[in-house]
Structures are given as C-alpha cells and as structure tokens.
C-alpha cells in the first residue's frame, strides 16, 4: 500500500441556482478516486455551502496514483428525483508525487460542466503520503519530473541528457461506442474527459518507467498529443527527452550507478581529446590539428555508408548547410566516432529540446522531415498498439537516416504531429540534424569539463553553422563558403533549423516571422484512392512551401530560419500547408543574394518592361526590409575571405524528399536550375501570382516585431509586461469554382488579416514583440478553414543603451521608470487615438509625480480630454468614469507607496508559451499541467453564436488552468501550449462542440526587482482569494 491520498472538501461558492422555487441549492460533493467514492453531507439551501468535511482517505497503489485523476462531483440533492449534477473538477495529483514540487494542492477550483461551462467554485485540499517502495519490478514511476519546456528548466542543471523517450496508448473513443447512442451528451463528454485523463496518466507513468530504466530523473520537452481517430479509436502519444537533472544551488547530487550507455562510453578513448571542438575553432591551436593523420573524408564516407544501407534510397529532407574545412575534418571524424557510439545504442538519437546548454550543440546540418500517409483501421487490441507504434518507428527510422545523410548523428528540436481527415492520417515528424557534444550524453567526467567547455567555447560563436558533412561527399548540391566569422570552416549559404537560435550566435539586426502558406485542391475520394491522391500531392506541396520560404527569406535579406515548423493539414477536398519560422541574418553565413526575375519571352517589349518593373519592386522591398530589420553586415570582400570557391555566391540548392506509406521514394531537386543567381522564372500566370504574393506580405506596423521562437533575435531588454492570447478564426469559402489560386489568396488573406488584427489589438503595448507565434490550421469541414494562433506579446524598452551596464541603483531607477511607463499605459490606451503609437520616453514618464493620486487623476483627465476632442460629447461622462476608478485605484496607490515587500502576494497567474518570464526568476517548478476539456452546447444562438461560445470556452479554459496553478501554489504557467482546439458546429441544430487540450509547466516566479529588495521572499501559496479581497477592500 504505497500511498495514501487525503482529500478535504472545504466549501463552495457562487454555485448556480438549482431549485427554481427557492432560488437556492442543496449541494453535496462526491469524491472519487479509482473505484472508491466518498460523499459529503448535504448543505441545505445555500449557494455558498460550507461543508468542512473530514479528511477522505484513499489507500492506493502508486501506479493508480499516477494514472487516475481525482474526480470531484458537485451535485444538488433532490429528495424525490435523481440528484442533479452541477459539475465536476478533475485534479491531477501527479505534482504531489515528487518531492521537489508541490506538497499540497489547495484552492478554489472552478466547477466545470461540459454543457453549462463553469458553475461556481469549490475549495479543496489534497495531500499525499507516499511510502517508499523499493520493489524493482514496480510499475509506477513516481518521482520522475516532467517538463513541457523544451530547454533545460531554469533552476536545474543537466547532468546527463539521455535522449529520446516515446510511448503511445490507444483506446476506444467513448464517443463512438454503441452506448453513446443512449446516453446523454454530458455523460458521453465526461466519459471522454475521464478516459483521456486516465490515458495521459498511464502514458506519463510508462514514459517515467522508461526514464528510470535509462537512469534519468526527468523528462524535458515533454509533448503529449491526442489523435482523435474517430471510429478507429483514440490515441494518446507522447515524446520527450530523458535527462538527469540536478537542482541548482543544491549540493552536488550523487548520481545513480553508471548506466549502460556510459559503460560502453568508457571504452571509447575520448579522454585523449576531451574538448575536440576547440581544435577546430581555437585559433591558437591550428598546428595541433595538423598532427592528426587519418583521412577525414575516407573515414566519414565509410561511416556513412556503413551505418545505414538504405541511406541512398531513403529520401532526404534537408537544407544545404556547410562543410568541413580541411582542418575541421579530422576532429570531426573523431568527434563523430565518439558521439556516434554514444548514440548508437540508442534506437533514435532524437532530442525534443530546442535550446541547449552551452557547448552541447556542435554543428547543425539542416532540417530533416518525413511524412507518411496512412489509412486508419480499427485498433483491435488496445493493449498492443502495434500498428501505431510501427508507423511511428518507420518515420523515426527515416528521420534518422536523413540525419545520417547530412553527416549528423543526432536530431534536435524533434517533434511529431498528425493530421486526420476521415480515415486518412498524415503522420509527420521533423527536426534538425545535428552533431552533439558527447559530454552531455554520458555521465562521469562532466563536472570539470563543463566549466572548461564554457570558457573555451566562448570565442566560437559560429561553430554550429559549420557544416557537419564532408565537402567532398556532400549529400546534396549545396553552395559553400568559408565562415564569415572564423574564416576557417565552411558554411552553407542558408541554414534552416527547427530549434531556437543558440544564445551565443551572432545575429545582425533583428529577426522576423516568415510564413509560407499554400493550399491545394484535391478530389474527394475514398480510402486508398484518397491516400494515394494525398501522397501524390505532398511532394509538390513541400517543394512549394520551401520555395516560398526561400523567396521570402531572401526578400527579407536574411540567411537563416529558426523554429521552422511545417504543418500539412488534410481536409475532405484540399490540403493546406503552413510553414512558420523566424528569419534572421547570421553573421557567420554569407550575405544572401537578391532575387532575379526572368521572363520566358524576352522579345516582347512591354513584357520586358513589366518584368523590370517587378524586379525594381523586389529590389526596393529587399532594401526596405534590410533597413527595417537593421541588417547592416560589415562589407567583406571575397578577397579578404580568400574564398577558394570561385562560384558566384547567389545560388541556393536544396534537396529534399518525400516518402509515402508505399515506401516509394521521391527525390526532388529544389535547387532552382543551374543558374548563378536566385532566379524566379515567370512563365505563366501561376508564377506571376507567386511573385505578387511575395510582395503582398505586409510588414508589421512600426513598434511591432514578431517571431515564432522563444525570443526575438536582436531584442534583449524585455520589460515585464506580458500578454498571452489565443485567437481563433474560421472562414467559409464560397464553394463556387474554387481554384488553387483563389484558395491560396483566401488563405493568405486569412493569415494576414489575423496578424493585422493582432497588431491592432495590442497597439497599446508598443513597442512590443509577439513571441512564440504559433499558427495551427485545421479543416473542420468541407468549406471551412480554421486558424488558431497562440502567442505572447512582450513589451521591451526601446532605449537599448540603458540596458547594457547598470549598477543596482540604476537598475532600480530603471525599474521605477518602467513602472511608471506601465502606469501610463492605461491612459495611453484611452487616448491611443489622439496619440497614435506614441511611446512615452522614460524621462517623461518619471517626471510625472505618481505619489499623489489626484495628480494622476488629473493627468488622466487631461489625456481623456484630449481624447474627448476627437469623439463627440461626453467629456463630463468621461470625467465621471475616471472618478469612479478612484476607490480601487486609490487603494492601489496607497499600497504602492508602501515598501514592495509588504504585499508580496501575487493574485494573478501569468501564462506564457515561453520558458521564462521576463524580468522574473523562476524559483520552483511545481509540475506539469495537462488538461483536456470538452464543451458542448445545444443553445448556440443563445450563447452568442459560434464566436460567443468559443470565446467563453477559451476564457474558461484559461481560468481553469490558472486555478489549478494557483492551487499548486504557483503564480505562472510557462511553456504553455494549446495543443488542440477542435471545433465542430451544426448551426441548423443550434449545436456546437469544442475540444481543447492545453499543457504547460506550473511554476513559482519572483520578480527580479523583488529579489533585490528581499531575497527570501516567497509568493504565498494559494493567494488568489485573499488577494482579490485585498485588492478591492483597500
């Protein structure tokens, strides 16, 4: 009996009226875990019942503790008829199972009903007493920490990064069981929610077991997804990176006994050259490199050919990237030998991380991806999900061989996704081929070397750009030059990756969000024919997506893409492709050439004129973009570099490929002909369209930047204001004569308009950057396109200079001024019309005396008066409004003048898709948040139509996430992601249904400024209620 779960139901509030006659409710609560149920007394006639129950105790296996959610149901007692359910709360108790996380879950949870939404709150306290169990055949994996964050969590240090863990579980979808025909929608939804909760618990436990087997203690970059396969079932799958983490500032942890990979590692003579990387890059040791005698190319080719025989046959998806220089070769081979063997016993040397400890990433090869079209069939035996496992294994194998073709032994920034339409499913996987430093992949001598590494690695900020494959044995035609930074190694002319920009990379100017959007019509078909049609279309789509990305990148004057994510969505009658990435100018890579337009019929004069006009427009755009993104690379002539490569620079080639379920292999040469410049040929209207669409992308308004990576390259002075948001749009296509072109335009407009709306909405935050912009496309019905965007807007300080050197005093001053700016932001919002995009210079902001409320009030009034001139009557009314704000505003002011430590409670739970919170330090990770909700309505019109319905639902989901985090004692969710938002409607029946799956890491953060004042400050556990009170009663 390894665990005792204790639950106490304290009280409820804001319950709905269940008895119309008395306008009251007789509520009681059922607490269920596994098969055991407890009940509280009925609290008669109250909407705010005070149960104050005893401790309900469940004695359970830790296996169950991991799998089962705690299920709390609030009901209305009815003497004569059946008790009516008010709603439920599912609490994942996993965070209580490992020692460093939360010790108690206590707080107000929204009571959720799948038909009515949130209906009041319930105050619950949950505790777990775990007994140590040393049974080595145990099925549980309590104690393994899970992180959604795709980098090493902030308050930990990676001792070993073990590698890829994956698992999937399948079950029948309750929605498709025969019983669904006779049960209520509510019962069906609840069965689904419960099942998924159970399945994710089981999945997490199984992954945990694998981690323990590898002797790790944590999973980082944990990504769990649901595939709603309809009739064929429900698949819950997860991938992650197993690590051994060590909490920082704690005394050095003792590692478990040597794990199996490390034993083998010891036979490898890596000790002879503990830091091989330095030889290639350190300018002080060029001679040493020469002493290596073996032939690099030979060893490499042998290796690559021997490693995987089907290599030449398997398709490759990769962007060209650099080659090894002469000096680099030997070291590389050695390095490869070491790491390769370190990774060889791993089935898949994949890492879901996108950011790495310094020195971990040695070289980056390029993007590798694989897709496969499958026909779904019923999963006959849920306990042996062999088919699904085999499908994914196949894809992973392919990715692995692609990486090998690029001379890389590992794949980083790895992710998997699916798109399902009826019985066809596209499985996709992508990542970045890379060469890693073996030091992190094994234990043992890490300690000393790490420090050494850090120092030695500093001068090489270009290392990761250097090509990992051999120049003489390039996997695809690519154009190489010497690195513009160190001038010793070869680099490719463009680099595409799925990872975040390494922190030590030198970037010129700022980055920007680059998207390629594409639609392809497809005939409606059944089963096999359908799958074949899709398979045939895929290569063309990928080709075009890549072309678009390349064109747009060049148009921006940039040479590398980070965070690349290509999503292919399948619908009844079309395929959609959406690629998002963040473009940057890497200093190590050559300046991108322009885009040259060529016509097919050069004799026609007017045509010629048209072409030259277009050419001019393109050149202007490139110049404008360079200015906009501050790309001014230092001019380096070829002579100085001493390039031995006589070819002209502007040539881009990429080779990628496509594989289908049929194992049929396609090879595509994406290099655009053999021409020297990057040429766009306009030979038909299609091409014309392409060029036009290139030019229609509007840059964000001034003061705005956007990227899909964690942070914006080129901006580093973030202020603390963040606003996470989700925006959803659905458009209906007019079904008449849809052509590919019209479709493309519609889709393009949809995305562009969505971005424009975001910029407009967030204009009060200028200057700000939209980070981690995550677009998801789905095709819920024939003529519907749904785009979901989640991102976070972060403000930054325009005066970058301020940020560079600061004494603590200056820092606090700076902080004060930021505060003031924030104060002003609201009035700014009020008057944003009259003062468009007018950022308050800090100097001006500080000069306003905020200590007196009256002053502030009057300044508000002034601002509002300004405003009043632009809009009709109502200056009186406006003044009234301002006065009204006073009771609370006033209170806040009094609070504010008090020392900040006096009120350390934080009432707000922040949410962000990033792994950090600007201006704050994460002090504790409380556990993973992984929630799945279904909401259904049969009164769609009454709830404000589809928009009203979904708006309310998403707001409710946010609220529930926040409540759970607060109950864990946290004040933020980092690495938040909305993994699924499946929306279905039937307006004729006045019905709609939506499924949302979100996840993230619950954390405790402390503002850096607060840290300076009181170092031992801890946000109060479960403070939301006390805080709200404090807030308003002041």
């Amino acid at each position, binding site marked *: 009996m390894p665990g005792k779960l204790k639950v106490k139901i304290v009280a409820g*509030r*804001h319950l709905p009226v269940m008895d119309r006659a008395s306008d009251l409710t007789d509520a009681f609560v059922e607490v269920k875990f596994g098969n055991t149920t407890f009940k509280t007394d009925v609290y008669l006639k*109250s909407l*705010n019942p005070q149960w104050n129950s005893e401790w309900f105790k469940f004695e359970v296996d830790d296996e169950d503790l991991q799998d089962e959610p705690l299920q709390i149901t609030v009901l209305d007692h009815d003497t004569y008829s059946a008790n009516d359910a008010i709603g439920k709360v599912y609490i994942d108790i996993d965070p209580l199972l490992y020692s460093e996380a939360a010790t108690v879950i206590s707080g*107000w949870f929204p009571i959720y009903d799948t038909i009515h939404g*949130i209906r009041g709150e319930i105050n619950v306290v949950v505790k777990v007493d775990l007994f140590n169990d040393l049974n080595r055949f145990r099925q549980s994996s309590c104690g393994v920490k899970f992180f959604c964050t795709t980098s090493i969590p902030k308050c930990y240090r990676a001792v070993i990064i073990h590698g890829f863990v994956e698992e999937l579980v399948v079950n029948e979808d309750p929605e498709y069981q025969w019983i669904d025909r006779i049960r209520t929608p509510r019962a069906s939804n609840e069965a689904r929610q419960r099942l998924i909760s159970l399945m994710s618990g089981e999945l997490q436990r199984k992954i945990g077991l694998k981690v323990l087997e590898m002797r790790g203690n944590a999973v980082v970059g944990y990504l769990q997804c649901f595939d709603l396969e309809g009739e064929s079932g429900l698949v819950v799958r997860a991938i992650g990176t197993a690590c051994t983490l060590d909490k920082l500032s704690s005394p050095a942890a003792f590692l478990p006994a040597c794990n199996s990979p490390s034993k083998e590692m010891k036979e490898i003579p890596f000790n002879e050259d503990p830091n091989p990387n330095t030889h290639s890059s350190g300018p002080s040791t060029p001679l040493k490199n020469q002493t290596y005698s073996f032939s690099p190319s030979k060893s490499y080719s042998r290796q690559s050919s021997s490693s995987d025989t089907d290599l030449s046959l398997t398709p490759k998806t990769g962007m060209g990237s650099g080659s090894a220089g002469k000096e680099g070769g030997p070291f590389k081979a050695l390095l490869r030998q070491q790491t390769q063997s370190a990774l060889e016993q791993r089935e898949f040397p994949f890492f879901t991380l996108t950011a790495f400890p310094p020195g971990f990433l040695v070289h980056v090869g390029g993007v590798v991806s694989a897709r496969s079209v499958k026909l779904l069939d019923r999963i006959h035996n849920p306990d042996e999900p062999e088919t699904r496992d085999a499908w994914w294994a196949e894809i992973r194998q392919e990715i692995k061989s692609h990486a090998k073709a690029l001379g890389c032994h590992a794949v980083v920034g790895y992710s998997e996704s699916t798109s399902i339409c009826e019985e066809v499913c596209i499985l996709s996987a992508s990542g970045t081929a890379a060469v890693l430093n073996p030091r992190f992949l094994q234990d043992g001598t890490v300690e000393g070397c790490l420090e050494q590494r850090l120092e030695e690695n500093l001068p090489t900020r270009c290392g990761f750009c250097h090509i990992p494959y051999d120049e003489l044995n390039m996997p695809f035609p690519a154009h190489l030059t010497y690195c513009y930074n160190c001038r010793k190694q070869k680099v490719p002319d463009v680099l595409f990756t799925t990872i975040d920009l390494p922190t030590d990379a030198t970037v010129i100017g700022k980055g920007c969000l680059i998207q390629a959007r594409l639609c392809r019509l497809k005939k409606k078909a059944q089963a096999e024919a359908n799958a074949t049609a899709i398979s045939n279309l895929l290569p063309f789509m990928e080709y075009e997506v890549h072309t678009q990305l390349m064109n747009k990148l060049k148009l921006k004057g940039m040479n590398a893409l980070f965070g690349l994510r290509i999503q292919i969505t399948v619908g009844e009658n079309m395929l959609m492709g959406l690629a998002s990435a963040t473009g940057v100018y890497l200093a190590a890579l050559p300046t991108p050439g322009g885009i040259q337009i060529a016509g097919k019929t050069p004799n026609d004069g007017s045509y010629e004129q048209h072409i030259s006009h277009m050419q001019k427009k393109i050149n202007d755009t490139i110049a404008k973009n360079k200015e906009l993104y501050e790309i001014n690379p230092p001019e380096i002539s070829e002579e100085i570099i001493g390039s031995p490569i006589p070819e002209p620079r502007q040539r881009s080639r990429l080779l990628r490929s496509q594989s289908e379920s049929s194992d049929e292999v396609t090879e595509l040469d994406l290099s655009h002909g053999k021409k020297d410049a990057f040429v766009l040929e306009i030979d038909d209207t299609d091409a014309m369209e392409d060029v036009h669409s290139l030019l229609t992308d509007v840059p964000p*308004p001034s003061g705005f930047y956007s990227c899909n990576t964690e942070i914006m390259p080129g901006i580093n002075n973030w202020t603390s204001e963040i*606003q996470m*948001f*989700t925006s*959803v*749009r659905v*458009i209906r*296509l007019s079904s008449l004569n849809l052509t590919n072109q019209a479709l493309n335009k519609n889709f393009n407009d949809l995305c562009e*308009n969505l971005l*424009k*709306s975001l*910029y*407009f*909405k967030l204009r009060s935050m200028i200057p700000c950057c939209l980070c981690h912009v995550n677009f998801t496309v789905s095709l819920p019905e024939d003529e519907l396109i749904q785009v979901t965007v989640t991102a976070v807007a972060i403000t930054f300080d325009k005066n970058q200079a301020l940020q560079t050197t600061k004494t603590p005093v200056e820092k606090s001053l700076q902080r004060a001024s930021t505060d003031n700016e*924030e*104060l002003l932001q609201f009035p700014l919002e009020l008057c944003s*019309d009259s003062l*468009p995009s007018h950022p308050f210079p800090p100097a001006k902001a500080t000069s306003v005396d905020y200590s007196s409320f009256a002053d502030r009030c009057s300044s508000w009034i002034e601002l509002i008066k300004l405003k009043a001139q*632009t*809009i*009709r009557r*109502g200056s009186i009314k*406006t003044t*009234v*409004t301002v*006065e*009204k*704000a006073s*009771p*609370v505003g006033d209170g*806040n002011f009094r609070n*504010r003048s*008090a020392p900040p430590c*006096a009120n350390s409670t*934080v*009432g*707000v739970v*922040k*949410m962000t898709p990033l792994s950090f919170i600007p201006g704050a330090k994460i002090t504790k990770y409380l556990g993973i948040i992984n929630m799945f909700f279904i909401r259904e309505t049969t009164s769609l019109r009454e709830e404000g139509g589809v*928009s009203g319905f*979904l*708006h309310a639902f*998403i*707001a409710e989901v*946010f*609220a*529930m996430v*926040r409540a759970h985090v607060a109950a864990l004692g946290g004040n933020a969710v980092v690495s938040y992601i909305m993994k699924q938002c499946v929306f279905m409607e039937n307006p004729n029946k006045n019905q709609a249904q939506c499924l949302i799956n979100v996840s993230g890491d619950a954390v405790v953060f402390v503002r850096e400024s607060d840290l300076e004042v009181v170092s031992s400050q801890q946000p109060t556990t479960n403070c*939301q209620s006390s*805080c*709200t009170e404090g*807030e*308003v*009663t002041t």
Partner: protein
Amino acid sequence: MTSELDIFVGNTTLIDEDVYRLWLDGYSVTDAVALRVRSGILEQTGATAAVLQSDTMDHYRTFHMLERLLHLLHQLIFQIPPSRLTVYPFWMGLTQPSESPARPRQTPFPLFYGGYYAFDEAFVREVLGKKLSKGTKKDLDDISTKTGITLKSCRRQFDNFKRVFKVVEEMRGSLVDNIQQHFLLSDRLARDYAAIVFFANNRFETGKKKLQYLSFGDFAFCAELMIQNWTLGAVGEAPTDPDSQMDDMDMDLDKEFLQDLKELKVLVADKDLLDLHKSLVCTALRGKLGVFSEMEANFKNLSRGLVNVAAKLTHNKDVRDLFVDLVEKFVEPCRSDHWPLSDVRFFLNQYSASVHSLDGFRHQALWDRYMGTLRGCLLRLYHD
C-alpha cells in the same frame, strides 16, 4: 470568403475605452465601427475597416460577457458573508485582479465597473423620483426619443438603478456605504446612486415643468441633506428589535419626525408668534438686505409657505410634492422679487435663528432639524 468565427482571448482582458464608451452609449456594432472610422483611427493606426470591424465585434462580445459577470456579482454578493462581499468571481477569467501592489496599472475591472454604472444626466433627470418598476420601463422609448440617448443605453441605466435599488432596499446601515461596498463604486457615484434610490423610494416629483430648471446635482444635494437629517438612520436610533423595525434606516423618512412637524404649525397659526417672529427677523435684517421691503411685505406668506410644507408632510402625496411646494411657495416668490442669493441666505439664516428667541415656542430641536435641512435645500434650489 466569409468569416464564420473570429475571437481573441487574452490572459488579461484588454478594454478599449473608446469602444467601451460606444457600447455604453448603446451603439450597434455597425454604428460603433462607423464612429470609430470617423474618429480617424484607421489613418492613425494604418488598420483596415475589416480589422476595425473584427476588433469592435470582439470588444462588444467581451462587454456582454462582463455584463453577465457583473449581474452575477450582485446576485452573489447578496448571499455571501460580509467578509467576502468584495470578492468578485475571478474564475470567470475575463479579468484578473491587479497583479501586485506595485503595478496599479491593471484596473480595467473597476474602470469597466464604474463606466458601466455611469449614467447620463439627461436620462436620470427623466426618471428621478419615478417608481423603478416595469411600468416605467415602457416609457424608456419616450425618454430615448426625447433625450437622444439610445434605447440600449437607457435600458442599461434604468436597470442599474433598479438593481441598486433592489439590493440596498432591504439593507440596514448607511445607504451610501451599502452602495459603495456592494457595487464597488466610487464615493461620488455611490452618493449619486443613494440620491437616486432615495428619490425613487420616496417618489419625489421632479418632472413638473416648474422643476425643469433644476439639475440632477441639485436634487442629489437635497437628497443627501435629507438622508443625513430626516431619516431614521440620521437620528442614530438603532431599532431595539431588528425584526419589528421594517423601515429602512436611510431610505425612508422618519415617520415620527414627520408627525411631529405638525407642531410647527403654531408658528403661523398663532398670530402673535408670527408677528413676533417677523419683527425679530426684520430687526435683525434691517439695512443688511437689498430687498428688505419686499421681504417685509412677503414675510408672512413665505413663512406660511415653509411651515405649511412641514405640516403637510404626514401625507405621502405631499411628501412627493415637496419640491414642487418649495419652488412654488418660496423660490418663485423670491425670484419674482429678484432676491439675490446672498439675501436669501441672510433671510433664511435669520428666519431659522430667530425662532430660538420665541419664548412661546417649545419645539426648538424639531425646528432645527427641519429648517437646517430645508435651508440648505432652498439655497441650492434657488437659482435660475
């Protein structure tokens, strides 16, 4: 290509003050978009009309949701123990309380709140003193036509009055405090609402033509004085048995006091007393008043007017006509004689004070309670 669904949900709710105002004023989305376009926002931000449309729709939807939350709040507030009175349901997720004391910026909720409870002067003048029941609601159409305020806005304001009235109706304690606590309104706005509720409860007539020159501010001022002096709460008489005492402390006039006011009649009924009173006032004011002769000539009429108003207050009907009577019996006669305000003040001060020297008059305290308030009211009502 038509947009089926278009939403934006933030972890904290952004409220655009301009759109909020348009919504409060009851404009439809189409009208609001048109007005925003006219304000030049497109040029300033470089946005398109479609973006503006989407933004406006989104805000309107948010406001509707907040409105629901707002109403829920009052329902809740009524039920939960006093310590929780100020908690608003943060789970609705529409807005969160301010992050930390150091950052008072995030006050959209109170702002939203205050804005929601703001009202138009023109509207409140129309309904002031009327019964806040459904019957009057039918008249909202007329008010809307008359004042040019949209029907939607009228309805919101009317419903606000009604909601506040219903909540505080059965509460004990200070009216202003109750409103302020339960509706989280500013002091100023709470006072205004107290006046509205007080007027509605006592059904004071404010709509007559001769009262049209008075502003809401005038009435609110009087209401405050009356609440402070003429109600049960004013005397601070805590009812001994809370169940038996059904009168609202601050909303109903002190019945006993009104009954007692009859005693004042002696001031005008007893000829000697009236003459003595007059001579006392005249002696004191001689040479100090620009309109002395007019005052002297009118003294008896004025005094009769003021005392009779007091004596009649036992009847509900006369309570309702209080302001009509005051204007008819005092303000208008003085105004027709062109009394300057300063003279009115001198006169009223002297008129009230002199009574203390009337030996035969025994109801000094009563007189002071009556006249103290009335003097303040009259001075406020005395303007063009």
